[in-house]
């Protein structure tokens, strides 16, 4: 039996090679003079998510302001780590910037180092922030940290995994509040809420934004506290960790931050230009409305303030890294 027609097969193979070559050359080019050509904005996540949408909205506004295209490029991989690696090694010429999910990416880098030094990046500013909170099913018997701590060792947290932001927050919270706990992993989005309703777990953590905020505001769930010093406007009745006597968990240090950076060593004048344009975009009412629509809040910071926030987050992650590692390995 003849396996296949060699001649035709070779033709198809040739077409595939040609198509591969074409496909590579149809995308992307770079310019020489700043800002004379497109600026690439890396997003370490797939299109359609919160950070991706925010990036596209801001990039569009920056394009008008800078007079050049700011092109969003999705470099999904490793929970944002691929984009972080790309920006870390990109030429320091201002033609590549990236949005980062902090402190999630700092934690991932500390747990499994890949050579990215976040403190060394040229920070442009902060785009968005999402306040973190702890919530449970409405009919849960838990209302205060004391009640949770008194429950014994049966408290289960629905979390995404053993290495993410929510695992860090759960590890630190339970350590500080003296709560015995177990993680139940693999929960994202509305599946977390289904897990709470089914009784897979008793507690869940997450950014109080988007569908999670809608769920917490519904009669099916209740938020027990938020990780801030001041009350959160969309949940005015929910106490802060500071009010509950745990100020060390407050100050927004566990909030989800969308921070934007340029490669290490980017010249100060270019950082200044980018930062000014970025900040201007964040004051545009359409940009603010578009980001709010995705359940996030615009929260502007200057380059130096952003750098300080990153330093602070690195400190917190370093402080609790061994605890996170120990908890992760014990599961």
């Amino acid at each position: 039996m003849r396996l296949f027609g060699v001649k035709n097969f070779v033709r198809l193979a040739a077409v595939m090679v040609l198509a591969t070559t074409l496909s590579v050359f149809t995308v992307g080019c770079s310019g020489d003079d700043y800002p004379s050509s497109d600026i690439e904005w890396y997003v370490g996540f797939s299109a359609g998510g919160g950070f991706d949408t925010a990036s596209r909205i801001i990039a569009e506004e920056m394009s008008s302001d800078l007079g050049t295209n700011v092109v969003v490029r999705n470099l999904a991989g490793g929970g944002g780590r691929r984009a972080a690696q790309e920006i870390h090694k990109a030429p320091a010429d201002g033609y590549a910037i990236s949005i980062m999910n902090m402190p999630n990416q700092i934690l991932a880098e500390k747990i499994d180092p890949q050579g990215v030094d976040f403190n060394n990046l040229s920070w442009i500013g902060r785009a968005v922030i999402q306040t973190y909170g702890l919530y449970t099913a409405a009919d849960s018997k838990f209302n205060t940290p004391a009640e949770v701590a008194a429950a014994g060792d049966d408290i289960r947290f629905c979390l995404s995994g053993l290495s993410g932001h929510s695992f860090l927050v759960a590890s630190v919270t339970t350590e500080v509040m003296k709560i015995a706990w177990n993680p139940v992993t693999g929960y994202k989005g509305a599946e977390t809420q289904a897990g709470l309703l089914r009784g897979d777990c008793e507690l869940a953590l997450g950014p109080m934004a988007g569908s999670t905020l809608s769920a917490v505001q519904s009669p099916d769930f209740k938020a027990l506290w938020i990780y801030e010093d001041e009350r959160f406007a969309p949940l005015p009745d929910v106490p802060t960790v500071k009010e509950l006597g745990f100020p060390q968990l407050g100050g927004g240090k566990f909030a989800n931050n969308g921070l934007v950076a340029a490669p290490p060593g980017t010249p100060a004048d270019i950082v200044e230009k980018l930062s000014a344009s970025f900040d201007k975009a964040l004051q545009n009412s359409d940009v603010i409305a578009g980001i709010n629509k995705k359940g996030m809040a615009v929260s502007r910071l200057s380059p130096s303030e952003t750098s300080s926030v990153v330093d602070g987050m690195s400190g917190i992650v370093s402080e609790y890294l061994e605890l996170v590692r120990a908890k992760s390995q014990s599961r």
Partner: protein
Amino acid sequence: MFEAMIAGLTNMGDPAIIAAICLGTLLGVVFGVIPGLGSVIAMTLIMPFTFGWDPIVAMYVFAGIIGTASTGGAVPAILLNTPGTIANVCTTFDGFPMTRRGEGGRAIGLAATASGLGTLFSIVVLAALLPVAKLLILWFTPPDFFWMVILGLIAVTFASRQNMIKGLAAGGVGILISLIGFSSVFGVRRYTLGSEYLWDGIEIVPLVIGFFALSELMVYTSRGGTIAQDAKVNLGGIKQILRGALEVFRYKSILLRGSIIGTVIGSIPGAGGAVANFLSYSTAKQSSKNPELFGTGHPAGVVASESANDAKDGGILLPTLTFGIPGNGEMVILMAAFILHGIQPGRDLLVNRLDIVWAIILGVIGAQILTTIVILAGGAWLAKISLVPVKYIAPFVAILSLIGVYAVRSNIWDVLLAIFAALVGFFMRKAGFPLITLIIGFVLGHLAEEKFTQSLQISQGDYAIFFTRPVSIILLIAIVFMLGWSLYKSAKPTKANLESS
């Protein structure tokens, strides 16, 4: 629920949505008409290009393809005696004899109308079950879910209609491939060989494009010639088509039974349109007063076959949308499209993204109505696409596929993965390994691991959690029954074996 439906209906006036439905319909019909290509390849090809689109618009395109391909597949089945998709096989039994009698148009009319009504029936059933689906999600705890995934894997393997051992082997390989990459559950990287590319595991888009589209092209290219071999189109006139379209209503009970069979069978993972097609046809024949007419060009045969294979659409969407368990290749691609557009099947979809659900439902309905009109008006012309030589079709589809793969993530490794998957898929086809089992194993393997781990985390390591819940026990019984039945069938001597001995 109703707000989302009304919003969806309102959106249907949007030019972008109308264009999306038209595009989906065009792709579905053309790829359905070309035997062997079908909806899976149409969906794989268009998927990367929808990247960056509004997810709602993208879903209308996919729904358009899902709703139309097997309707399009009836055209070559009737006119060329070559089923466009595997779900159109029974249509050839009576459709082609009608064509030989010079009644091809009448058969096209019967098929298009039966398909349209079958789809509408199943989609209405799906829409009616959506409120219940939300409750179902809360009934299904992780151990129940684990057993359901296992049941789905076994059902798909047994339904592969090829060597069961090869099916199991392919499914096993699919599960192993699904384990590659960073496991957020355990916080470790597995089998990545230090490669950054493998960090997130094997990407589903290049994998399915390589497996389904490119390997199929390689098969056709190796064979040469035209896709439909040796055929002359014999349609009759427009009056015949209209006669056939109206004649469907003479076979109301067959139409209804075919629609019910299609909807129910469609909801069982692995069963799909082909099983529904055969079951509906054989039931119609057995219950007929004139069974001898079936196979000779009996209109009832066309109605039974086409109503069932299209009615599977509503049924098969139910486990995909509710639990993220795809029952066939189409649904695997739909799942890949969900991933591409950041959509999570299950509670998230049914609670927060009902707009997506209704886009799919309304898209299928809109496309089906459009297809019925298109097939009635231009079926004979469409059938001639099958007579275009492969050497013209294959390069076009190959270029489109690979550019599409690269466009999603701008990663050349994705292109190389697609080519590698094409080669593996080609040789798997030659060796008789079912590709669909491997892909379903790939999709469900990760889910099985996650639910297994979750169950043990909930029970703090107590395996009894898998055997104590009523839903788990029912699913376990179903698994045991399916395994037992399969072993019984394989052990039972067949007539052919007895004769040879």
